[in-house]
Protein backbone atom coordinates (compact mmCIF):
# COMPACT_ATOMS: atom_id res chain seq x y z
CA UNK A 1 0.00 0.00 0.00
CA UNK A 2 1.29 3.42 -0.86
CA UNK A 3 0.87 5.38 2.33
CA UNK A 4 1.54 8.59 0.49
CA UNK A 5 -1.78 8.22 -1.26
CA UNK A 6 -3.55 8.32 2.08
CA UNK A 7 -1.78 11.46 3.23
CA UNK A 8 -3.82 13.96 1.30
CA UNK A 9 -7.20 12.62 2.45
CA UNK A 10 -8.53 12.79 5.98
CA UNK A 11 -9.49 9.22 6.82
CA UNK A 12 -12.85 7.60 7.41
CA UNK A 13 -13.30 8.66 11.01
CA UNK A 14 -12.83 12.35 10.27
CA UNK A 15 -14.92 12.45 7.13
CA UNK A 16 -17.44 14.49 9.09
CA UNK A 17 -20.59 12.85 7.82
CA UNK A 18 -23.08 10.33 9.11
CA UNK A 19 -25.76 10.68 11.77
CA UNK A 20 -25.12 13.25 14.53
CA UNK A 21 -21.71 13.97 13.08
CA UNK A 22 -21.43 17.40 14.68
CA UNK A 23 -20.89 15.59 18.00
CA UNK A 24 -20.31 11.94 17.14
CA UNK A 25 -17.11 11.78 15.14
CA UNK A 26 -16.93 8.06 14.57
CA UNK A 27 -18.21 4.64 15.60
CA UNK A 28 -15.80 1.77 16.01
CA UNK A 29 -16.00 -1.91 16.82
CA UNK A 30 -12.99 -4.12 17.36
CA UNK A 31 -12.62 -7.84 17.94
CA UNK A 32 -9.72 -9.65 19.62
CA UNK A 33 -8.95 -13.11 18.29
CA UNK A 34 -6.12 -15.61 18.71
CA UNK A 35 -5.07 -18.68 16.79
CA UNK A 36 -5.67 -21.81 18.86
CA UNK A 37 -2.42 -23.49 17.91
CA UNK A 38 -0.02 -20.78 19.03
CA UNK A 39 0.92 -19.27 22.38
CA UNK A 40 -0.30 -15.73 23.01
CA UNK A 41 2.04 -12.97 21.86
CA UNK A 42 3.82 -12.62 25.22
CA UNK A 43 5.04 -16.23 25.05
CA UNK A 44 5.50 -16.37 21.28
CA UNK A 45 9.03 -16.56 19.90
CA UNK A 46 10.16 -14.95 16.68
CA UNK A 47 9.39 -18.12 14.75
CA UNK A 48 5.86 -18.28 16.19
CA UNK A 49 5.25 -14.63 15.39
CA UNK A 50 6.41 -15.08 11.83
CA UNK A 51 4.13 -18.11 11.38
CA UNK A 52 1.17 -16.36 12.98
CA UNK A 53 1.68 -13.41 10.66
CA UNK A 54 1.88 -15.53 7.56
CA UNK A 55 -1.16 -17.69 8.44
CA UNK A 56 -3.34 -14.70 9.30
CA UNK A 57 -2.12 -12.64 6.40
CA UNK A 58 -2.90 -15.43 3.92
CA UNK A 59 -6.33 -15.99 5.48
CA UNK A 60 -7.23 -12.31 5.51
CA UNK A 61 -6.26 -11.84 1.92
CA UNK A 62 -8.38 -14.88 0.97
CA UNK A 63 -11.69 -13.73 2.36
CA UNK A 64 -14.18 -12.03 0.11
CA UNK A 65 -14.50 -8.87 2.14
CA UNK A 66 -10.92 -8.17 1.34
CA UNK A 67 -11.45 -7.20 -2.27
CA UNK A 68 -9.77 -3.94 -1.52
CA UNK A 69 -7.60 -4.81 1.46
CA UNK A 70 -3.94 -3.98 1.27
CA UNK A 71 -1.29 -5.41 3.53
CA UNK A 72 1.33 -3.27 5.23
CA UNK A 73 4.34 -4.88 6.88
CA UNK A 74 4.53 -2.73 9.99
CA UNK A 75 7.85 -4.24 11.06
CA UNK A 76 9.52 -2.86 7.94
CA UNK A 77 7.95 0.59 8.10
CA UNK A 78 9.92 3.64 9.06
CA UNK A 79 9.04 5.20 12.41
CA UNK A 80 7.29 8.13 10.80
CA UNK A 81 5.06 5.87 8.73
CA UNK A 82 4.09 3.84 11.79
CA UNK A 83 3.26 7.08 13.57
CA UNK A 84 1.24 8.11 10.54
CA UNK A 85 -0.90 4.97 10.82
CA UNK A 86 -1.39 5.61 14.54
CA UNK A 87 -2.57 9.16 13.83
CA UNK A 88 -5.10 7.75 11.39
CA UNK A 89 -6.22 5.21 13.98
CA UNK A 90 -5.43 2.33 11.66
CA UNK A 91 -2.99 0.76 14.11
CA UNK A 92 -2.60 1.18 17.86
CA UNK A 93 0.30 2.94 19.46
CA UNK A 94 1.25 -0.35 21.10
CA UNK A 95 1.34 -2.05 17.71
CA UNK A 96 3.47 0.74 16.25
CA UNK A 97 5.97 0.63 19.08
CA UNK A 98 6.36 -3.12 19.58
CA UNK A 99 8.92 -5.24 17.78
CA UNK A 100 9.10 -8.28 15.57
CA UNK A 101 6.92 -9.72 12.81
CA UNK A 102 3.66 -7.79 12.60
CA UNK A 103 1.49 -6.07 10.09
CA UNK A 104 -1.87 -4.61 9.24
CA UNK A 105 -4.34 -5.12 6.43
CA UNK A 106 -6.17 -1.92 5.60
CA UNK A 107 -9.20 -1.34 3.38
CA UNK A 108 -8.75 1.41 0.83
CA UNK A 109 -11.61 3.38 2.35
CA UNK A 110 -9.96 2.93 5.78
CA UNK A 111 -13.13 1.50 7.31
CA UNK A 112 -11.48 -1.84 8.04
CA UNK A 113 -8.12 -2.60 9.56
CA UNK A 114 -6.82 -5.96 10.75
CA UNK A 115 -3.78 -5.79 13.00
CA UNK A 116 -1.67 -8.91 13.24
CA UNK A 117 0.48 -9.57 16.33
CA UNK A 118 -0.78 -6.77 18.49
CA UNK A 119 -1.64 -7.73 22.09
CA UNK A 120 -3.62 -10.57 20.54
CA UNK A 121 -2.75 -12.40 17.34
CA UNK A 122 -5.51 -10.57 15.52
CA UNK A 123 -7.34 -7.34 16.21
CA UNK A 124 -10.05 -6.55 13.71
CA UNK A 125 -11.37 -2.99 13.59
CA UNK A 126 -14.24 -1.47 11.67
CA UNK A 127 -14.73 2.26 11.86
CA UNK A 128 -17.58 4.30 10.42
CA UNK A 129 -18.10 8.03 10.34
CA UNK A 130 -20.82 9.42 12.62
CA UNK A 131 -23.11 7.32 14.82
CA UNK A 132 -23.29 4.01 13.01
CA UNK A 133 -22.50 1.23 15.50
CA UNK A 134 -24.93 -1.41 14.33
CA UNK A 135 -23.71 -1.51 10.78
CA UNK A 136 -20.10 -1.41 11.99
CA UNK A 137 -20.87 -4.47 14.15
CA UNK A 138 -22.57 -6.27 11.26
CA UNK A 139 -19.60 -5.67 9.04
CA UNK A 140 -17.05 -6.89 11.58
CA UNK A 141 -19.22 -9.91 12.43
CA UNK A 142 -19.17 -10.92 8.76
CA UNK A 143 -15.40 -10.57 8.52
CA UNK A 144 -14.95 -12.60 11.72
CA UNK A 145 -17.24 -15.37 10.47
CA UNK A 146 -15.44 -15.60 7.16
CA UNK A 147 -12.10 -15.85 8.93
CA UNK A 148 -13.41 -18.47 11.39
CA UNK A 149 -14.08 -20.73 8.43
CA UNK A 150 -10.42 -20.68 7.52
CA UNK A 151 -8.55 -20.53 10.82
CA UNK A 152 -9.10 -21.92 14.32
CA UNK A 153 -9.69 -19.15 16.81
CA UNK A 154 -8.98 -20.03 20.44
CA UNK A 155 -12.31 -20.62 22.13
CA UNK A 156 -13.63 -22.20 25.31
CA UNK A 157 -17.29 -23.14 25.82
CA UNK A 158 -17.43 -21.37 29.18
CA UNK A 159 -15.17 -18.38 28.61
CA UNK A 160 -15.80 -17.77 24.92
CA UNK A 161 -13.05 -16.36 22.75
CA UNK A 162 -9.77 -16.53 24.61
CA UNK A 163 -7.55 -13.48 24.77
CA UNK A 164 -4.11 -12.71 26.16
CA UNK A 165 -5.63 -10.46 28.79
CA UNK A 166 -8.67 -11.59 30.78
CA UNK A 167 -10.15 -8.09 30.37
CA UNK A 168 -11.02 -8.96 26.75
CA UNK A 169 -12.14 -12.56 27.14
CA UNK A 170 -15.58 -13.74 26.00
CA UNK A 171 -16.77 -11.71 23.07
CA UNK A 172 -13.41 -9.98 22.61
CA UNK A 173 -15.45 -7.03 21.47
CA UNK A 174 -14.76 -3.40 22.21
CA UNK A 175 -17.43 -1.01 20.99
CA UNK A 176 -16.59 2.66 21.01
CA UNK A 177 -17.80 6.02 19.86
CA UNK A 178 -15.69 9.12 19.59
CA UNK A 179 -17.46 12.24 20.73
CA UNK A 180 -16.55 15.90 20.50
CA UNK A 181 -17.64 17.42 23.83
CA UNK A 182 -16.17 20.92 24.07
CA UNK A 183 -19.14 22.51 25.85
CA UNK A 184 -19.12 19.89 28.60
CA UNK A 185 -15.44 20.68 29.09
CA UNK A 186 -15.99 24.45 29.22
CA UNK A 187 -18.90 24.11 31.66
CA UNK A 188 -16.79 21.72 33.78
CA UNK A 189 -19.34 18.97 33.67
CA UNK A 190 -17.11 16.48 31.95
CA UNK A 191 -15.78 14.80 35.09
CA UNK A 192 -19.32 14.31 36.31
CA UNK A 193 -20.08 12.61 33.03
CA UNK A 194 -16.94 10.49 33.45
CA UNK A 195 -18.05 9.32 36.83
CA UNK A 196 -21.55 8.41 35.81
CA UNK A 197 -20.26 6.48 32.81
CA UNK A 198 -17.93 4.49 34.98
CA UNK A 199 -20.76 3.53 37.25
CA UNK A 200 -22.37 1.76 34.32
CA UNK A 201 -19.09 0.07 33.29
CA UNK A 202 -18.25 2.31 30.40
CA UNK A 203 -14.68 3.47 29.91
CA UNK A 204 -13.68 6.95 28.79
CA UNK A 205 -10.45 7.64 26.99
CA UNK A 206 -8.92 10.38 24.88
CA UNK A 207 -8.50 10.66 21.14
CA UNK A 208 -5.47 8.42 20.80
CA UNK A 209 -6.18 6.05 23.64
CA UNK A 210 -5.38 6.56 27.25
CA UNK A 211 -2.66 9.16 27.04
CA UNK A 212 -4.44 12.08 25.48
CA UNK A 213 -7.66 12.74 27.30
CA UNK A 214 -7.65 16.46 26.76
CA UNK A 215 -6.66 16.47 23.10
CA UNK A 216 -9.16 18.59 21.25
CA UNK A 217 -12.03 17.64 23.62
CA UNK A 218 -12.42 14.30 21.86
CA UNK A 219 -13.56 11.45 24.06
CA UNK A 220 -13.91 7.78 23.32
CA UNK A 221 -16.62 5.96 25.20
CA UNK A 222 -16.37 2.17 25.21
CA UNK A 223 -17.59 -0.93 27.01
CA UNK A 224 -15.39 -2.31 29.79
CA UNK A 225 -17.08 -5.65 30.08
CA UNK A 226 -16.61 -8.22 27.34
CA UNK A 227 -17.99 -11.36 29.00
CA UNK A 228 -21.50 -12.38 30.01
CA UNK A 229 -23.28 -10.18 27.49
CA UNK A 230 -23.94 -10.72 23.81
CA UNK A 231 -22.17 -8.59 21.26
CA UNK A 232 -25.42 -6.89 20.33
CA UNK A 233 -26.08 -6.06 23.99
CA UNK A 234 -22.65 -4.50 24.22
CA UNK A 235 -23.25 -2.52 21.03
CA UNK A 236 -26.53 -1.33 22.53
CA UNK A 237 -24.98 -0.55 25.89
CA UNK A 238 -22.65 1.94 24.23
CA UNK A 239 -25.14 3.02 21.58
CA UNK A 240 -27.87 3.77 24.13
CA UNK A 241 -25.75 6.18 26.11
CA UNK A 242 -24.76 8.25 23.08
CA UNK A 243 -28.08 10.13 22.68
CA UNK A 244 -27.89 11.01 26.37
CA UNK A 245 -24.39 12.43 25.96
CA UNK A 246 -25.38 14.26 22.80
CA UNK A 247 -28.26 15.78 24.73
CA UNK A 248 -25.95 16.88 27.59
CA UNK A 249 -23.51 18.42 25.16
CA UNK A 250 -26.26 20.25 23.25
CA UNK A 251 -27.73 21.54 26.49
CA UNK A 252 -24.31 22.76 27.60
CA UNK A 253 -23.91 24.51 24.25
CA UNK A 254 -27.36 26.09 24.56
CA UNK A 255 -26.48 27.22 28.03
CA UNK A 256 -23.27 28.85 26.80
CA UNK A 257 -25.05 30.54 23.93
CA UNK A 258 -27.78 31.80 26.22
CA UNK A 259 -25.87 32.73 29.34
CA UNK A 260 -22.52 33.88 28.04
CA UNK A 261 -22.87 34.46 24.37
CA UNK A 262 -20.18 37.15 24.25
CA UNK A 263 -17.67 35.04 26.13
CA UNK A 264 -18.34 32.05 23.97
CA UNK A 265 -18.19 34.02 20.74
CA UNK A 266 -15.02 35.70 21.96
CA UNK A 267 -13.39 32.37 22.76
CA UNK A 268 -14.28 30.96 19.36
CA UNK A 269 -13.22 34.10 17.48
CA UNK A 270 -9.91 34.28 19.32
CA UNK A 271 -9.20 30.64 18.61
CA UNK A 272 -9.92 31.23 14.94
CA UNK A 273 -7.75 34.33 15.00
CA UNK A 274 -4.76 32.56 16.51
CA UNK A 275 -5.01 29.66 14.10
CA UNK A 276 -5.08 32.06 11.15
CA UNK A 277 -2.14 34.15 12.24
CA UNK A 278 0.20 32.16 14.48
CA UNK A 279 3.78 31.74 13.29
CA UNK A 280 4.64 28.74 15.42
CA UNK A 281 2.18 26.46 17.17
CA UNK A 282 2.26 23.10 18.99
CA UNK A 283 0.09 20.17 18.13
CA UNK A 284 -1.65 20.39 21.48
CA UNK A 285 -2.55 24.06 21.15
CA UNK A 286 -3.74 23.46 17.61
CA UNK A 287 -6.10 20.71 18.74
CA UNK A 288 -7.36 22.86 21.55
CA UNK A 289 -8.10 25.83 19.29
CA UNK A 290 -9.51 23.76 16.46
CA UNK A 291 -11.89 22.29 18.99
CA UNK A 292 -13.28 25.75 19.82
CA UNK A 293 -13.50 26.66 16.17
CA UNK A 294 -15.27 23.40 15.36
CA UNK A 295 -17.88 24.10 18.00
CA UNK A 296 -18.15 27.68 16.73
CA UNK A 297 -18.92 26.43 13.24
CA UNK A 298 -21.53 24.02 14.58
CA UNK A 299 -23.16 26.85 16.52
CA UNK A 300 -23.14 29.20 13.55
CA UNK A 301 -20.65 31.60 15.14
CA UNK A 302 -18.27 31.15 12.23
CA UNK A 303 -19.84 30.96 8.82
CA UNK A 304 -16.96 30.80 6.37
CA UNK A 305 -15.66 27.36 7.33
CA UNK A 306 -16.85 23.83 6.65
CA UNK A 307 -16.62 20.91 9.09
CA UNK A 308 -14.82 18.61 6.62
CA UNK A 309 -11.98 21.13 6.26
CA UNK A 310 -11.71 21.41 10.04
CA UNK A 311 -11.69 17.67 10.46
CA UNK A 312 -8.94 17.49 7.89
CA UNK A 313 -6.92 20.09 9.77
CA UNK A 314 -7.21 18.03 12.97
CA UNK A 315 -5.41 15.17 11.34
CA UNK A 316 -3.15 16.98 8.91
CA UNK A 317 -1.55 19.00 11.70
CA UNK A 318 -0.53 15.83 13.61
CA UNK A 319 3.26 15.41 13.60
CA UNK A 320 3.63 12.51 11.17
CA UNK A 321 1.01 13.87 8.78
CA UNK A 322 2.65 17.27 8.73
CA UNK A 323 6.01 15.77 7.89
CA UNK A 324 4.64 13.48 5.23
CA UNK A 325 2.70 16.32 3.64
CA UNK A 326 5.84 18.42 3.60
CA UNK A 327 7.87 15.48 2.37
CA UNK A 328 10.69 15.87 4.88
CA UNK A 329 11.36 14.97 8.49
CA UNK A 330 11.22 17.95 10.84
CA UNK A 331 12.17 18.42 14.48
CA UNK A 332 9.65 19.78 16.97
CA UNK A 333 10.54 23.44 16.50
CA UNK A 334 10.40 23.19 12.71
CA UNK A 335 7.18 21.24 12.90
CA UNK A 336 5.57 24.02 14.94
CA UNK A 337 6.55 26.56 12.28
CA UNK A 338 5.36 24.31 9.48
CA UNK A 339 2.09 23.63 11.33
CA UNK A 340 1.41 27.36 11.71
CA UNK A 341 2.15 27.88 8.03
CA UNK A 342 -0.13 25.02 7.05
CA UNK A 343 -2.97 26.40 9.17
CA UNK A 344 -2.58 29.94 7.82
CA UNK A 345 -2.60 28.68 4.27
CA UNK A 346 -5.76 26.61 4.69
CA UNK A 347 -7.76 28.87 6.97
CA UNK A 348 -7.12 32.02 5.00
CA UNK A 349 -7.88 30.42 1.68
CA UNK A 350 -11.60 31.11 1.88
CA UNK A 351 -11.55 34.84 2.42
CA UNK A 352 -8.37 35.50 0.53
CA UNK A 353 -7.00 38.19 2.85
CA UNK A 354 -3.66 36.61 3.67
CA UNK A 355 -3.98 33.88 1.14
CA UNK A 356 -1.24 31.40 0.44
CA UNK A 357 1.60 33.84 0.98
CA UNK A 358 3.69 31.03 2.35
Amino acid at each position, binding site marked *: MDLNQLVTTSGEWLRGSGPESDIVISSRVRLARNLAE*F*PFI*GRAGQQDRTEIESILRDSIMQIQESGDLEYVNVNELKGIDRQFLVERQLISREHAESEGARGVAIARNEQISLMINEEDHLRIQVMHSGLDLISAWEQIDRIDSLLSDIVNFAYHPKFGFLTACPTNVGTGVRVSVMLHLPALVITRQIDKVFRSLQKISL*AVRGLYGEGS*QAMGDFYQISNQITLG*KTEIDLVKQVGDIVPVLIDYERRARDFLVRESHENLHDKVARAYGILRTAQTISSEETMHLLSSVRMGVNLGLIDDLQIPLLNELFIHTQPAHLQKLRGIELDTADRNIERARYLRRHLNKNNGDESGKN
Partner: protein
Amino acid sequence: MKCQKCNKTATFHITELTKGKPEELHLCEDHARQYLTTQSDEEPAVTPSLAGVLAHQLAVGQTAEELARLDQRSCPVCGITFYEFRNQGRLGCPYDYVCFMAELEPLIVNIHGETDHVGKISARYPEGTEHRTQLVRLRREMKEAIDEEDYELASKLRDEIRKIEEPPKKK
Protein backbone atom coordinates in the same frame (compact mmCIF):
# COMPACT_ATOMS: atom_id res chain seq x y z
CA MET B 1 -11.55 10.06 48.32
CA LYS B 2 -8.18 11.79 48.16
CA CYS B 3 -6.02 12.20 45.08
CA GLN B 4 -3.30 9.54 44.85
CA LYS B 5 -0.64 12.18 44.31
CA CYS B 6 -1.62 14.97 46.71
CA ASN B 7 -4.12 15.81 49.42
CA LYS B 8 -6.83 17.34 47.29
CA THR B 9 -10.10 15.58 46.67
CA ALA B 10 -9.98 13.15 43.80
CA THR B 11 -12.51 14.18 41.18
CA PHE B 12 -11.20 12.08 38.31
CA HIS B 13 -11.54 8.32 38.49
CA ILE B 14 -9.83 6.79 35.55
CA THR B 15 -9.77 3.16 34.62
CA GLU B 16 -6.98 2.24 32.27
CA LEU B 17 -7.62 -0.77 30.11
CA THR B 18 -5.48 -0.40 27.06
CA LYS B 19 -2.34 -1.87 28.54
CA GLY B 20 -4.29 -5.00 29.10
CA LYS B 21 -4.70 -4.52 32.82
CA PRO B 22 -7.54 -2.68 34.46
CA GLU B 23 -6.01 0.02 36.55
CA GLU B 24 -7.88 2.43 38.78
CA LEU B 25 -6.60 5.93 39.24
CA HIS B 26 -8.07 8.50 41.55
CA LEU B 27 -6.76 11.99 40.90
CA CYS B 28 -7.51 15.62 41.53
CA GLU B 29 -8.11 17.82 38.51
CA ASP B 30 -4.52 19.06 38.25
CA HIS B 31 -2.94 15.66 38.54
CA ALA B 32 -5.50 14.15 36.22
CA ARG B 33 -4.61 16.70 33.57
CA GLN B 34 -0.93 16.11 34.12
CA TYR B 35 -1.40 12.36 33.97
CA LEU B 36 -3.53 12.48 30.88
CA THR B 37 -1.30 14.76 28.90
CA THR B 38 2.09 13.28 29.73
CA GLN B 39 1.24 9.67 30.12
CA SER B 40 1.89 8.58 26.56
CA ASP B 41 5.63 9.08 26.90
CA GLU B 42 6.37 7.76 30.32
CA GLU B 43 4.59 4.96 32.05
CA PRO B 44 3.14 6.07 35.34
CA ALA B 45 4.81 4.71 38.44
CA VAL B 46 1.57 3.04 39.41
CA THR B 47 1.38 -0.25 37.57
CA PRO B 48 -0.10 -2.76 40.01
CA SER B 49 -3.59 -3.00 38.45
CA LEU B 50 -4.46 -6.57 37.59
CA ALA B 51 -1.59 -7.75 39.73
CA GLY B 52 -3.06 -5.73 42.58
CA VAL B 53 -6.53 -7.14 42.13
CA LEU B 54 -5.11 -10.63 42.05
CA ALA B 55 -2.88 -10.15 45.05
CA HIS B 56 -5.82 -8.85 47.01
CA GLN B 57 -7.98 -11.78 46.04
CA LEU B 58 -5.36 -14.35 46.74
CA ALA B 59 -4.40 -12.87 50.07
CA VAL B 60 -7.84 -13.77 51.37
CA GLY B 61 -7.80 -17.16 53.02
CA GLN B 62 -4.41 -18.29 51.81
CA THR B 63 -1.17 -18.69 53.64
CA ALA B 64 2.09 -17.34 52.32
CA GLU B 65 3.26 -20.84 51.48
CA GLU B 66 0.12 -21.57 49.55
CA LEU B 67 0.64 -18.38 47.62
CA ALA B 68 4.24 -19.19 46.88
CA ARG B 69 3.25 -22.63 45.69
CA LEU B 70 0.56 -21.16 43.48
CA ASP B 71 3.05 -18.70 42.00
CA GLN B 72 5.28 -21.56 40.95
CA ARG B 73 2.58 -23.55 39.25
CA SER B 74 3.08 -23.50 35.54
CA CYS B 75 1.00 -24.24 32.49
CA PRO B 76 1.96 -27.62 30.99
CA VAL B 77 1.36 -26.24 27.51
CA CYS B 78 3.15 -22.91 27.29
CA GLY B 79 5.21 -23.06 30.48
CA ILE B 80 4.11 -19.71 31.91
CA THR B 81 4.09 -19.63 35.72
CA PHE B 82 1.26 -18.08 37.63
CA TYR B 83 3.79 -15.62 39.00
CA GLU B 84 4.69 -14.48 35.49
CA PHE B 85 1.04 -14.00 34.64
CA ARG B 86 0.50 -12.01 37.82
CA ASN B 87 3.40 -9.78 36.92
CA GLN B 88 2.66 -9.21 33.27
CA GLY B 89 -1.12 -9.33 33.37
CA ARG B 90 -1.13 -11.36 30.18
CA LEU B 91 -1.65 -15.07 29.81
CA GLY B 92 0.68 -17.32 27.86
CA CYS B 93 -1.65 -19.49 25.81
CA PRO B 94 -5.32 -20.49 25.44
CA TYR B 95 -4.83 -23.48 27.78
CA ASP B 96 -4.05 -21.16 30.70
CA TYR B 97 -7.77 -20.53 30.96
CA VAL B 98 -8.19 -24.24 31.72
CA CYS B 99 -5.19 -24.91 33.92
CA PHE B 100 -5.55 -21.73 36.01
CA MET B 101 -9.34 -21.77 35.91
CA ALA B 102 -9.80 -21.78 39.68
CA GLU B 103 -7.58 -18.71 40.07
CA LEU B 104 -8.89 -16.90 37.01
CA GLU B 105 -12.57 -17.24 37.76
CA PRO B 106 -12.69 -14.82 40.69
CA LEU B 107 -10.56 -12.40 38.71
CA ILE B 108 -12.91 -12.65 35.75
CA VAL B 109 -15.90 -12.05 38.01
CA ASN B 110 -14.13 -9.02 39.36
CA ILE B 111 -13.60 -7.60 35.88
CA HIS B 112 -16.79 -8.63 34.11
CA GLY B 113 -19.26 -9.47 36.85
CA GLU B 114 -19.92 -12.75 35.05
CA THR B 115 -18.09 -15.97 34.30
CA ASP B 116 -19.97 -17.36 31.33
CA HIS B 117 -19.79 -16.32 27.72
CA VAL B 118 -23.19 -15.81 26.09
CA GLY B 119 -22.12 -14.17 22.84
CA LYS B 120 -21.12 -15.47 19.46
CA ILE B 121 -20.22 -19.15 19.38
CA SER B 122 -17.16 -20.42 17.61
CA ALA B 123 -18.08 -22.41 14.54
CA ARG B 124 -15.12 -24.71 15.01
CA TYR B 125 -15.13 -25.62 18.65
CA PRO B 126 -14.08 -28.19 19.95
CA GLU B 127 -11.82 -29.33 17.15
CA GLY B 128 -10.62 -25.75 17.21
CA THR B 129 -9.04 -25.14 20.56
CA GLU B 130 -8.74 -28.30 22.65
CA HIS B 131 -7.03 -30.28 20.00
CA ARG B 132 -4.93 -27.52 18.61
CA THR B 133 -3.64 -26.42 21.97
CA GLN B 134 -1.48 -29.51 21.91
CA LEU B 135 0.42 -27.89 19.08
CA VAL B 136 1.53 -25.12 21.39
CA ARG B 137 3.01 -27.68 23.78
CA LEU B 138 4.56 -29.84 21.05
CA ARG B 139 6.20 -26.87 19.36
CA ARG B 140 7.62 -25.69 22.65
CA GLU B 141 8.95 -29.16 23.45
CA MET B 142 10.44 -29.44 20.00
CA LYS B 143 12.23 -26.14 20.41
CA GLU B 144 13.56 -27.25 23.78
CA ALA B 145 14.70 -30.57 22.28
CA ILE B 146 16.55 -28.69 19.55
CA ASP B 147 18.13 -26.36 22.09
CA GLU B 148 19.35 -29.42 23.98
CA GLU B 149 20.50 -31.01 20.72
CA ASP B 150 18.23 -34.00 21.24
CA TYR B 151 17.45 -34.31 17.57
CA GLU B 152 15.89 -37.73 17.82
CA LEU B 153 13.21 -36.41 20.17
CA ALA B 154 12.86 -33.26 18.07
CA SER B 155 12.12 -35.21 14.92
CA LYS B 156 9.61 -37.40 16.76
CA LEU B 157 7.87 -34.28 17.98
CA ARG B 158 7.95 -32.78 14.53
CA ASP B 159 6.12 -35.82 13.16
CA GLU B 160 3.48 -35.48 15.84
CA ILE B 161 3.06 -31.82 15.03
CA ARG B 162 2.61 -32.60 11.35
CA LYS B 163 0.00 -35.23 12.14
CA ILE B 164 -2.11 -32.67 13.97
CA GLU B 165 -1.47 -29.89 11.49
CA GLU B 166 -2.33 -31.83 8.36
CA PRO B 167 -5.96 -32.97 8.43
CA PRO B 168 -7.91 -29.78 9.19
CA LYS B 169 -5.74 -27.59 7.04
CA LYS B 170 -7.64 -26.63 3.95
CA LYS B 171 -6.61 -24.01 1.50
